[in-house]
Every structure is written in C-alpha cells, then in structure tokens.
C-alpha cells in the first residue's frame, strides 16, 4: 500500500525514506503531466486549498498555487499584509474562519517556528508547511533532493555543501534532514557568526573556508544572506562577505572538477553568487523551480488521497 506515513507535511523531520521515495515517484508522473500540451489533471476537483502566507513569498506561493491549479483544486489566497491579522486576530481564529468556508488543505507560511505543528493540533484540515520561521521548509528540501537525484542519478553517498546564512535558514535545516535521510553527506559553510552553535550535533561537517568546502563537495546549495532576519551585524560588510563566501567562475575553475550549483532563490546576484555562475550549465537553479511544481503536486495529491469524501 502506498501511503504517506504522515497526516500533514509539517517538516522533513517527520518523514521516513519510504515517504520520500513515494513523493519522488509521484512527482515523476506529475513532471510528465506538466510537460503535456494541457498541463492539468482533474484529480482534486472537489478539494479546496487555502494558501495562508503570513510572511512574504513570491516563488513558493506561485509554485504552490500552480501545483494546486494543475491538480484542479479550488484555491483561495490569503496574505497577512492585507488581513485582519493586523487587527489583532489570533492564528486559530483566522484559520477557523477560513475553514468555515470548507477548506480541506491549508498551505501555510508563518514567521513563527512550529506554527504548522500548532495549527495541525487545533484544526481539522491537512496542513502543509510552506516555511515556519527559521525552522523548516520541507517542500524546498524535497525539490532540492529531487533535483540532485535527477541530475546525479541518486542522493545516496553524494557530498552536499550548504553555503551561506545557515543561522536564519529554514532551507538549510530541512535540507540537512532530507539529505541525511537519503544517505548523503552534508557540510555547512559560512561565516562563523551565521552557523548555529551546535549544528555539528546534527551530524554535519562545518567548514569556514569556501574553497575547501567546494573541493570536498559534489553539489553546492547556495543560500542568500537574509538581511530581513538580522537585527545585528553578523559580518562587517557585504563586500567582505562576497570576497570570502561568494561563488564566482574563477573559484569554480580552480577546483579541477565540475560541481552542481543550486540556489533556492531569491538570488542576490553578485553577493553570494555571480551571474555567470548562476546562469551557467553547472547551475540547476531553473530545474529546481520546475521540479518545485511537480514536487508540490505530489505532496498535495498524496495528502489529499487521505481525505475521505463527504
């Protein structure tokens, strides 16, 4: 029987390897679907999905919305900046109001860690975490692993370095869980101030020399510096950050091997990565975006499968 072992997608932490295999297998089918002349299947025509974004998002929101529409679900969108949240409404009240409109699945991004877990305990709908604070961003990690598998044949045994602002990144934590579950070796690389103190306890290697990290790895997943989450200065200047942790062509050419470059976006061109690298053949950044829709279709489809018809 092919079921997910979980009732919600709250984080990679709650998944097992069979869940990931099932998600990838299902995403393969959806990737074929989204390359058809008519890129739509009717599976979810009686399902309603609410996208609740309590924090800004462009590509994740678009990607989820497209995935939902490709599955024929009805979609409602909500963003906190234009809502009653600003008027003092609690999260549960906001969501219950939305659920009264007969919503089956909630896709939520929230600035607070654990918002998805909290919600899943209080309301009767499937919850998909689209990012909770600096905690987890499970669909991003799934699409990253899926893209690595697509490019290199497997994730097992591969060496992946996550470069940049690890401290403020939900992508990093979800990626660490997902990659380790699939048997990859993971290293984090960045300024000491942007690497969480006890991250080595997760079983990841820590490196502060970018060149050494790149020489070690098969894949470099480059993260953006999240200025909006920084209340103090973690490094002297952007110029210095770029000199020490920016990936450029010269550096890649000096490695003597070709590594795969990934970036979850949005890219700050010229800061963590130069344009010629981001747009090069080694970069699979745009594949990640395409795979994001297929992976999110798989997540939604497999969770929707568990909903009993009325």
């Amino acid at each position, binding site marked *: 029987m092919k079921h997910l072992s979980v009732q919600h997608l709250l984080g990679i932490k709650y998944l097992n390897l069979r869940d990931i295999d099932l998600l990838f297998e299902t995403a393969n089918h959806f990737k074929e679907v989204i390359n058809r002349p008519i890129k739509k299947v009717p599976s979810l025509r009686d399902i309603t999905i609410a996208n609740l974004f309590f924090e800004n998002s462009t590509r994740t929101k678009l990607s989820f919305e497209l995935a939902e529409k490709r599955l024929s679900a009805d979609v409602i969108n909500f963003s906190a900046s234009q809502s009653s949240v600003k008027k003092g409404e609690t999260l549960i009240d906001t969501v219950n109001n939305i659920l009264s409109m007969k919503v089956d699945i909630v896709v939520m991004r929230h600035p607070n860690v654990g918002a998805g877990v909290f919600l899943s305990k209080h309301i009767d709908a499937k919850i998909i975490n689209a990012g909770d604070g600096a905690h987890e961003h499970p669909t991003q990690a799934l699409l990253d692993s899926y893209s690595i598998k697509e490019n290199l044949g497997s994730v097992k045994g591969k060496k992946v370095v996550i470069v940049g602002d690890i401290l403020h990144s939900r992508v990093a934590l979800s990626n660490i869980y997902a990659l380790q579950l699939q048997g990859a070796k993971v290293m984090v690389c960045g300024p000491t101030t942007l690497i969480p103190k006890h991250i080595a306890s997760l079983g990841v290697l820590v490196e502060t020399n970018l060149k050494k990290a790149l020489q070690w790895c098969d894949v470099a997943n480059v993260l953006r510096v999240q200025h909006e989450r920084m209340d103090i200065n973690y490094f002297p200047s952007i110029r210095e950050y770029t000199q020490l942790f920016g990936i450029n062509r010269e550096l890649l050419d000096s490695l003597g091997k070709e590594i795969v470059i990934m970036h979850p976006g949005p890219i700050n061109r010229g800061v963590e990565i130069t344009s010629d690298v981001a747009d090069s053949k080694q970069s699979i950044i745009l594949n990640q975006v395409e795979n994001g829709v297929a992976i999110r279709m798989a997540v939604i489809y497999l969770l*929707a*499968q568990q909903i009993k018809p009325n």
Partner: protein
Amino acid sequence: MPSKQRLDSNMAQKTLLNSKDIHIILHRLACQLLENHIDFTNTVLVGLQPRGTFLANRIAKILNEEYNIKNLHLGQLDITFFRDDFRRRTAPLEANSTNLNFTIEDKKVVLIDDVLFSGRSIRSALTAIQSFGRPDSIELLVLIDRRFSRHLPIQPNYKGRQVDVINSEKVKVIWKENDKKDAVYIINNN
C-alpha cells in the same frame, strides 16, 4: 474471516480463452484495424496502463511483422489522475508512466484495453487523451467485452470476445510477457 488460502481454494477458475484462441483473435483484431486504417499513417495506437499495454504491443507487433506496417505510432497512456474514484477507494491509486512521443492532433486514435467492464476507465481515458491534443476520432479496441456491466454509454469498436458474466465474477487476462502464457480466465469469488 476465512484465511487467504481458504479463499483461494474456494475460487472456481474457468478458462475462457487459451493461447490458441487468443492468437486467432489477435490476428482478427489486427485485420479489422487494417481494414479501417489501411496504412496507419494518420492513426495512433494507445494502450491503457497497466494491462492494456500488453494487448497494444501484441497488435502492433502483428501489424508490423505480418502486415508490414512500418512507423506505427504506439503509445501508453496512464489514466490514474483522471479516474473518478480518487479518495473513494480503500487502496490508493498507483500511477504508471505515460509515453506518447507523438502528437495526436487530428489523428485517428485507437484506445486499447484488455477488459471493458463498467466503462469508467475508458471515460477517464477519453478525458486524459484530450491533454495531448484534439484527435480526429477515437475508437476503442478491447479483448474482452463484459456485456451488461456498463455504468456508462461506452461500447467498443473492435472486440475479441463478448462475455456475459455476473458481477461477482472476475475476468482475468494474463499475457506470456508476464505470466508465461496467454489466457483469459473467469474467476468466481463466491
């Protein structure tokens, strides 16, 4: 609750078609297709996943090897995401791959499946095939047509054998590619 073994021993199995019968029927079906489609330049054969693909491959092989039809367009269509029983079954639906490496725009499409029962799979296939363009026409070829079991107004254009079986009986088609021999059984579950 009887054990699985017990259930199996209670199941009566009757052979409806043996290898020789199937051999003759497949040749007849291939000839009927030839009559209508002549050189197949504007025709595509589409086997429905999972079990219709064996039949489609066989028919294509006969047309190719015995009637010299070259460049035959043969594809596989998976209808999982178009089914009308999503969330309404106890067992989850499992998808198979779709391979249609040609356009079906303005083509004569022949959908091929092993058993026509309720007609719901074919209804799903009719919707699914539209995702690949607007065909000139769609026909249906089946090996076994279970009469009197239809839930929808769908009938085959080409059929191997028509059978009248009661709803508790199951028609099972096996192919030598998978099960070492070709045969069609009627299995009584009672």
